[in-house]
């Protein structure tokens, strides 16, 4: 797959790679040895029939490959780009034991893009059931749930709090990793399936879950995600020049601040940027900062390279583009200059100790091993918690720690009658594919419930 040079990439917001050509896709698909027991499939959170779709690509039957993927995954153009394949399907690939694994993600993206370029058709729909369901949020999990419910014949309305649908796909993941035209095209398919999308509705404020149930929605799915930024709780964290990655990325992605002053929303990037955290969001923020003209971008992470939660490809792209990783380094406090703005960040070096409850080695600060990093912009990307509003405003909806909604994992049923939930709002921040999987599990249960087959609250 051809890739654009890093020096060129950081000048714009275009993708790293234009994707496979048809010839390249067929050649890569032919590397698949069609294992009798395909482990790649076990590695996929939604159990996609990977060997079959790759076999169809090898035969040049791209449309059939698309149909095959669609059975389990509605957003291949998205997942092919953002799934952590190296820790899922590609990790299990037999070819990978001796050679490079088959590039399953890139093949999936190829099929997804092929389908979108042809004008993706709405899937066949069941006759109308006469039942209405509300879906709260419009991120990947909510979209998957809405699409499955619509296919089963239910009238679905999506309520989105922002002015544009797509959730994290729209406001979080940057253009150079997931072009917004891809997200818009996928959402267009839902509209063609007669799913109503109502933006500017904050469920919990504009309308409550109980009111939706009274308004004639027989079931409500909550897929509001984990978008509430965490802060490190260190002195100086609210100084001007310290911002959350979600805020920074929302300005750039949703509000198009990278096109200021054509777009009104400003974004300030500074010249010496420090990003705190080591996940995909941290890499996205670091790479976005470079594209906005930052001279130096450092990612501070308190554990070692091995524990970095970001996709390997994102780390590789970031380093290639000039992002410097400062590993085993933890922030201690932010210090402002005479103008009151952030000026430097005091850090401490760490070493790794025993495993913690997350199964990773715990970072332990080394006494006396402090260092100072000069910076004019700190971007905090140390994780997000579930959006808190709906939990707080809905009586009878039980939560676990950190505002995560309690559900039955088999069905997505919450403790409140007629209300289901899934994705990051249940699990805490995870992946696009897991949220989609949860949305589909819930859609099956909701369908069952709407048709009077199963009452999960009896």
């Amino acid at each position, binding site marked *: 797959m051809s890739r654009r040079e890093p020096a060129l990439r950081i000048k714009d917001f275009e993708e790293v790679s234009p994707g496979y050509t048809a010839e390249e896709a067929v050649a890569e698909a032919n590397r698949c040895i069609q294992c009798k027991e395909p482990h790649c499939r076990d590695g996929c959170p939604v159990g996609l029939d990977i060997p079959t779709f790759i076999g169809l690509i090898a035969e040049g039957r791209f449309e059939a490959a698309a149909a095959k993927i669609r059975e389990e995954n509605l957003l291949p153009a998205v997942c092919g780009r953002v799934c952590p394949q190296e820790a899922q399907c590609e990790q299990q690939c037999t070819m990978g034991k001796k050679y490079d694994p088959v590039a399953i993600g890139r093949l999936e993206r190829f099929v997804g893009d092929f389908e979108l370029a042809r004008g993706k058709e709405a899937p066949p729909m069941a006759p109308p059931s006469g039942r209405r369901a509300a879906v709260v949020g419009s991120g990947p999990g909510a979209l998957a749930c809405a699409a499955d419910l619509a296919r089963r014949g239910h009238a679905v309305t999506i309520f989105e709090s922002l002015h544009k649908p797509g959730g994290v796909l729209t406001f979080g993941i940057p253009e150079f990793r997931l072009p917004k035209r891809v997200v818009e095209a996928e959402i267009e398919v839902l509209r063609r399936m007669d799913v109503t999308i109502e933006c500017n509705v904050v469920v919990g404020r504009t309308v409550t879950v109980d009111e939706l149930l009274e308004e004639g929605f027989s079931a409500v799915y909550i897929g509001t995600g984990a978008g509430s930024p965490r802060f490190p709780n260190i002195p100086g964290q609210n100084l001007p020049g310290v911002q959350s990655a979600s805020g920074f990325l929302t300005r750039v992605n949703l509000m198009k601040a990278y096109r200021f*002053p054509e777009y009104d929303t400003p974004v300030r990037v500074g010249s010496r940027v420090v990003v705190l955290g080591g996940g995909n969001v941290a890499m996205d923020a670091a790479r976005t900062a470079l594209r906005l003209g930052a001279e130096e971008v450092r990612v501070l992470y308190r554990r070692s390279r091995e524990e970095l939660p970001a996709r390997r490809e994102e780390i590789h792209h970031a380093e290639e583009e000039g992002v410097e990783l400062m590993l085993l380094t933890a922030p201690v406090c932010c210090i402002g200059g005479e103008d009151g703005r952030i000026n430097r960040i005091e850090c401490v070096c760490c070493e790794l100790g025993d495993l913690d409850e997350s199964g990773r080695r715990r970072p332990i600060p080394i006494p006396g091993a402090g260092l100072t990093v000069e910076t004019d912009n700190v971007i905090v990307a140390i994780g997000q918690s579930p959006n808190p509003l709906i939990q707080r405003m809905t009586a009878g909806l039980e939560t676990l720690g950190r505002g995560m909604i309690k559900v039955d994992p088999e069905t997505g049923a919450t403790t409140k009658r007629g209300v289901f939930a899934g994705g990051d709002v249940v699990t805490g921040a995870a992946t696009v594919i897991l949220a989609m999987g949860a949305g589909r599990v819930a859609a099956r249960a909701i369908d069952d419930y709407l048709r009077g087959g199963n009452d999960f609250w009896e």
Partner: protein
Amino acid sequence: MFKILEKVVLSPSVNLMKIEAPRVAGKARAGQFLILRVSECGERIPLTVADCDPERGTVTIVFLEVGKTTRLLGSLAAGDGILDVVGPLGNPTEIDSFGRVVCVGGGVGVACIYPICRAFKEAGNEVIGIVGARTKELLFWEDRLREAVNELLITTDDGSYVRQGFVTDVLREVAEREPPPDRVVAVGPLPMMRAVCGMTREFGLKTIVSLNPIMVDGIGMCGACRVTVGGRTRMACVEGPEFDGHEVDFAELAQRLRRYQDMEQESLARFLAECDGQC
């Protein structure tokens, strides 16, 4: 699109708009705000809900034209549309029967305290309204406010109307009365709220302020609106906008509000050049 049904110019650069937004109108309570985006390239800005009519499905906003977005909004007329309106956001004012409540409004904050005064009065409080403006022609809603309070006290910085002085001068006199106020609510420019809190602290009067930090989403996701209150980081959009004024770090908030100042000015300059003084 959210249609503007009515526009009133209240004073030079202060406009009132009634917007058709039935969902918001049905839900808004005193102290809450909405976020709007005028056009496709526009920013999202928070504005306090000054009034609403659930039956007609309208919300009223009052805004001062300061930057590009508020000037662009101000250039619209009845019949025009606003691209996005979302709300109500934030927590409503805590309304209870406190006894004697003083509501202080400065600048367009006068419009914000109107629904708060009304709600306090309906809850059985004795409500004293104190409003201040730079000069007489910037004052508005005197009659409306008078109906929502038991006593209305007015000051102008230049003495062009009623009495010369600042709202804090009047507030001091009210604070010295017997019995003293049970609660003070202040909404207005940051320096005013800060001054009010400095004064009421001397008297030990519980004071609630409505903060106006920079916001993007308004639902707790961007973190731009975080403020330090009582040493803790709080999000004004979902945990506020009202906080105990004696615990707010105003100096930090003032600095954070200036974060994009030069870019805001650039945006405004471009806008003014484009419309050639016509708006």
